[in-house]
């Protein structure tokens, strides 16, 4: 499990008071009962953690934990080197 994946799984698990073993890449937000407010809070925490900004249109398309991990990977790959390194 790479760093981004493990950190996001830990973040999601903590936000819902769950053991990390209950959160997998294909776990959906619906399964975790992550509502719209939880999603906004989670996005804020992910943005803080990885120094990125998730565009509104991407936010709406996030349905699974894996979507978040892949989105962060893509945003970091597209970011300037200094930002990606931070």
């Amino acid at each position, binding site marked *: 499990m790479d760093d981004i994946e493990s950190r996001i799984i830990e973040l999601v698990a903590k*936000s*819902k*008071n769950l053991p990390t073993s209950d959160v997998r890449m294909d776990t959906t937000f619906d399964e975790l009962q992550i509502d719209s*407010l*939880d999603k*906004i*809070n989670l996005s*804020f925490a992910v*943005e*803080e953690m990885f120094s990125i900004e998730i565009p509104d249109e991407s936010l709406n398309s996030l349905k699974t934990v894996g979507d978040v991990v892949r989105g962060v990977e893509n945003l970091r790959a597209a970011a300037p080197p200094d930002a990606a390194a931070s």
Partner: protein
Amino acid sequence: MKRVVVTGLGCITPIGNTVEEFRESMFAGRTGIAPFDTTFAGALSPDPGLRFRTTAKVKGFDPVNNPAQHLASGVIVSSDSSAQFGIVAARQAAAESGLLSHYDPADIAIITGCACGGRAADEEANRHLYTRNARVAPTAILRTMASSGTSSIAIEMGVTGQVLNVSTACASGTHAIGLAFQMVRAGIAPAAITGGYEAALTFGFLRAWDSMRVVSPTSCRPFALDRDGMTLGEGSAMLAIEPLDAALARGARIYAEIVGFGMSADAHHITQPRAEGAALAMRRALEDAAQSGADDAAGRVGYINAHGTGTPTNDAVEAAAIHQALGELAPHIPVGASKSLTGHSIGAAGAIEALATVLALDAANLPYTAGVTEIDPAFNLDVIMGATRPLAVGKDLALSNSLAFGGLNAVLALRRYTS
């Protein structure tokens, strides 16, 4: 017009996080006022620059680990401790009364008082924003809404009736209970959960009060000759109220009856109170009580739970108001001030004092004003000090006064209930 009774109580306060603890501390005269930790997160100087060193803080509130105070993680992240106090206190009142299993959720009103909102959450977010350009969390809005607790109570209980929060500074809790009383009496709401909540003991809040030079460097001693100011507090108290006939029909425990409510505005000054305004609210509460069947209301008053902040000005003006409202009876009516025990919790103060008044009437025993050894003789009032005192025979009414900054006055009249 229905007779309205109190059938459930709840509280999170500096002198107890259950009604039983509150009652025991109150009658024992054990104050919740104590020195506070002067280390404030993010403060630029180790010296907080305050003239005072005491507040009345809630102790032992733990909504994560204490099952009796448990709140879901989603509620905790999206609420400030002010709202959290309110939710738990309301839960206690609802559980004791059994209101939720006897009334349709759409028939229950929730009327609360909170003046400062999520002050701690607001201050924390802004401190990070202004000092290190930090982003502001999306929950900041939710945590700072003054009605956050009100909504959360409705959500937790599934209550869909008339739900609102009142903000009238130090009178918020009393205005809230007064409105709820009027609604239940008129049949607009068949039952209600009502009270107040506040938790604003932040560095910025303490500094602002310090600048007003009304906070005691020692401890709040209402009506004392040596009084030197107020002490800030926090907490929540909630009452479950319903019509007498409904309470009797379902065999509910009845603590007291609410018989009157009076409001007024000084229309005078944003900080300087006027006796005429407070006296008008007291007279209106007594007139209202008389219309509710309490004949000779003034003559039956056996206890006044005063606003009693302990500032030189408030206590002098309130004493004058008591004389204006009650005339020759005034010197003979026992007066107490709960703020000597609980501090001044602003929007929650009136609710906590209504709770104290209800418990006093229920026990027919009047709590004393802690820390007072000599009453200011200029007041010519019978301030209870040193020991509790029985409610006099033939006296079954009590007034609970709240006189807010800005001259907004609210007074409840309550009656001892005997079956």
